[in-house]
């Protein structure tokens, strides 16, 4: 077994209202960052795992996302695996 660091990014689905992102966008505009045209806010999870291979670690991480870490109704996720 080898050690991996899995980074999971969970984002609200693009078609749904993201009020947090909207509020931050407005705040940035108020601070003079008018070039910002959209802000979306999600979650970043870092998991330390052991697995036989990088592919196994990624497959397990996707299973974790499907079952718990992301809500399939409202969120999309992506998984990045690196050797620890």
């Amino acid at each position, binding site marked *: 077994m080898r050690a991996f660091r899995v980074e999971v990014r969970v984002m*609200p689905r693009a*078609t*749904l*209202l993201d*009020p*947090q992102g909207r*509020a931050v966008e407005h705040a940035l505009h108020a601070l003079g960052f008018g070039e910002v045209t959209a802000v979306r806010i999600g979650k970043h999870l870092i998991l330390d795992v052991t697995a036989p291979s990088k592919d196994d670690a990624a497959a397990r991480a996707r299973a974790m996302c499907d079952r*718990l*870490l992301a*809500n399939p*109704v*409202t969120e999309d996720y992506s998984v990045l695996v690196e050797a620890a």
Partner: protein
Amino acid sequence: MRRVAVVVFPGSNCDADTLHAARAAGCEAYFLWHRERDVRQADVVVLPGGFSYGDYLRSGAIARFSPVMAAVAEHARAGGQVLGICNGFQILCEAGLLPGALMRNAGLRFLSRPVWVRVEETDTPFTCLYEHGEVLELPIAHGDGRYAADPRTAAELEARGQVVWRYVRDNPNGSTNDIAGICNAGRNVVGIMPHPERRIAPVLGGQDGARLFLSMEAGHATQHAVGVRAVGDRHPGV
């Protein structure tokens, strides 16, 4: 006298009010700790409001894997009646027992105030003593109350009469189609964001919520519930 199990998760905080409301309506109500694996022959299972597991990750996301939830899902599958109030509604959605999800309020603030909802469906175990179209004043207390469903799911809910309560006058959280509460296709599983258990007597500021619990005690049989109940041995004697 109907047996009503009020599930207690770590972080539930409306469990005692809900138990009281069920008993005041004449039900035989009892607490069911979330680690139990059996609903103890409940006629109705209620998932109360609160902040199970601190709302960590997403509201209801962790509670839905509590041991008791397998029994709740089995109870629902067999036609048994299930009510989720506020956090309970969030848990039912996370568990897939109700469609859609509850997201952060559009205005981002936690809201604790009365709202008005219209009773859209009286053919459920929890609204059978209300009049269709009646407007109720009930309090909300939530940060994640914006019901969201994809357009197809929302259209199906409307077409099949699964929108049970709808916000009127104003929509406090930006929910899809002003939805305040829904039921599943079998009409035996119901979720509501406002808190009926907090309005069951004039001394509490109103009693618009009382008939929800009286409906429960009245034992309205949904179209699917009757035939299926005797199949499992979870409901002997019914």
